[in-house]
């Protein structure tokens, strides 16, 4: 089992689109995949047409005695399950805090899913909170989308610094999303970052209205337009993530 989280301190950087597409690509390659929507907006659940309804609210979800996998919903795509979120997830910080060792809670909840899934993808809400702290503990890799602007790079640096302070930090894989090649700033930031920081993934996701179509089609772009530029970019990104994970495994 490998746990991947899409995370960024900033909002609106295509975290959810990345989580949904990456989870779909994993499932399509034959890996049993679970996507856990941790965002109270429930956008990942919406993309996969699953009703944003969590029986008993987030408090019950975090109750270790109840089996998490029983809450999983099979998506329309073979091998891809979803744990939906609803608005009660806005209280996830409080619910975690009510538990002893709140930062370890997610990791402990996910441990029994080892036999059922090959990949778990966590779609995180933005900002640094107890939820993100728990995610950092549970995840093997953080896939962090960045819009190519100086402000995003600053937020990324903050995240890097924060992760460095952890005892066992997950592997951070930043990449550029919503890249608009027509903007010279985007081109310059991408080129400088890739040439100076080898930690960045080489694949980037272009800005495209087709990605926005995900909200009307309510499906991953890798499913409804698998040959589109964006879908191919996600496939390349997924390939690179796999490669990096395998390199880390070999090391």
């Amino acid at each position, binding site marked *: 089992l490998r746990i991947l989280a899409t995370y960024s301190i900033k909002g609106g950087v295509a975290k959810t689109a990345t989580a949904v597409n990456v989870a779909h690509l994993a499932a399509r390659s034959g890996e049993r995949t679970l996507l856990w929507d941790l965002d109270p907006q429930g956008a990942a659940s919406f993309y996969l047409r699953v*009703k944003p309804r969590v029986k008993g609210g987030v408090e019950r979800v975090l109750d270790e005695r109840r089996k998490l996998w029983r809450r999983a919903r*099979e998506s*329309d795509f073979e091998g891809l*399950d979803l744990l939906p979120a609803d608005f009660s997830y806005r209280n996830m910080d409080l619910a975690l805090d009510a538990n002893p060792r709140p930062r370890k809670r997610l990791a402990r909840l996910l441990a029994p899913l080892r036999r059922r899934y090959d990949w778990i993808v966590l779609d995180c809400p933005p900002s640094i909170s107890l939820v993100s702290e728990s995610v950092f503990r549970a995840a093997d890799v953080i896939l962090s989308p960045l819009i190519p602007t100086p402000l995003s790079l600053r937020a990324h640096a903050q995240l890097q610094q924060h992760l460095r302070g952890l005892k066992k930090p997950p592997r951070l894989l930043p990449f550029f999303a919503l890249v608009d090649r027509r903007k010279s700033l985007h081109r310059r930031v991408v080129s400088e970052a890739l040439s100076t920081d080898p930690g960045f993934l080489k694949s980037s996701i272009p800005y495209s209205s087709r990605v926005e179509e995900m909200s009307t089609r309510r499906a991953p772009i890798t499913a409804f337009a698998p040959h589109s530029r964006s879908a191919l970019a996600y496939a390349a990104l997924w390939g690179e993530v796999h490669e990096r994970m395998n390199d880390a495994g070999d090391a």
Partner: protein
Amino acid sequence: LSRPRRSSERRIYYDTFDWRLHRQGMALCSRSADDGALLVLEGREARLDQPVQKTPCFAHELEPGPLRETLAEIVENRRLHATVCLDERAECVDVEDGEGKTVVRMRFERSSASDPAAPQRSERLPFVVHVRALRGYRAAFRAVCRTLAAVPGSREAAGRQLDRALARLDREPRDDAAKLELDVWPGQPAGDVVRLTLAALLRTMRVNEDGMRRALDPEHLHDFRVAVRRARYLVRGARNLLASDAYDSLRSDLSWLGSATGPTRDFDVHLEQLRSDAERLGPEEEDALSPLVSLLLMRRADAHGHLLDALSSTRYAEFHAGAQRICEPAGAAIDPGPAVVELASLRIWKAWRRLVRNGRAIREDTPAAALHEVRLDAKRLRYLLDFFHRAFPAREVRRLMRELRRLQKNLGAFNDARVQQSGLRGFAADLVAGGEARPESVIVIGRLVEDAVARERAERARFAGHFAQFDSPGNRKRVRRLFRSHSREESAS
């Protein structure tokens, strides 16, 4: 409901002649694909598939992989036969909720089944709707099931489509099994049991005859020969119950059949052993062994020709007709005799004592021929237990059988290693004499002989342990309790 997606497919199911896959609750089928076929092995819990250019006749012809491994474990060296052909037209429809999310998947199937050997006869199968629940949507699944159940004439379909197809084609999946399972009770007249057993053995011969003639699977011949040997031993043991002319004719015909089928079987065994050796050794050695394989195939073809002559002869037809007459319930050829429990106890007790006596006499330096005798003794005891086990407490007999099987396996492996050595030496000499032997062929044959010698030694070293386990105080006590009392009464009477 989503828009229906239509598809059509032809599936050909395969199994061994003794339905090994079916008995394990598994199904092997080939599905036609764009570039060849997809071979699918489905069980209760797992599904394996592998693309193939053509359907293999044996498991070992498949590319290495999980499917080959699983299949080989079940079917061993048996040939795969097409059992049924299913032509299916399907429509897949998804049931969606208000969000447009699929909550239940449905598949409507119209199929017809045909026998691959007689494809002109095609039978339509009942219309089947498969309903699949998606995880997390049980309520929707139950609602769909309720709706379907309310449709007049519908019912929950039990079992697999394959079983329905076989039933529609009047094919009984266990009809070819060679196992002797007769209803025998202790007080039944021994003559009745002999008659029923002989009839069952004749049936086994008949069932395997066609496969033997067409050389479909070496196991047809094997099962045929086992039936002949069993029948020979049955007739010998029932000498007092059989009319003398019936006894004489059966003895002589069965002995003739044993000889007529022996050479072909010997070559089958050698070829099978060579195949597994070649697989173990590697491609170079396999190539070096090819002249030997060709020689064996040629000789097997000759032997099979003689076998076909025997099966087509008047003597064979008369043997079956005569044996059937002997087995007729109203016939006078078999005397009812005593209760089967008495006759069986006496025979089993004697066979046991003989086996134990000969087994105990085996020392490290005892000639191999003596061990061969012990093997035959064990075989005789096994046949008797196969014939009459139903007349005794099942649990006790099962335990005895378990120990006996272990001993037989050891003795069988010892004998196979010896037969292989002498066979290989003879074949190598023939190859050299015929000028067909390449130096590397002789070297590899030499290696195989060495391996066989090592196996023989290893099995011989294991014999003492296996025999001690068989001749344990517990087993001795069990045999005395089961068979001795009756055999004494019989002897006294």
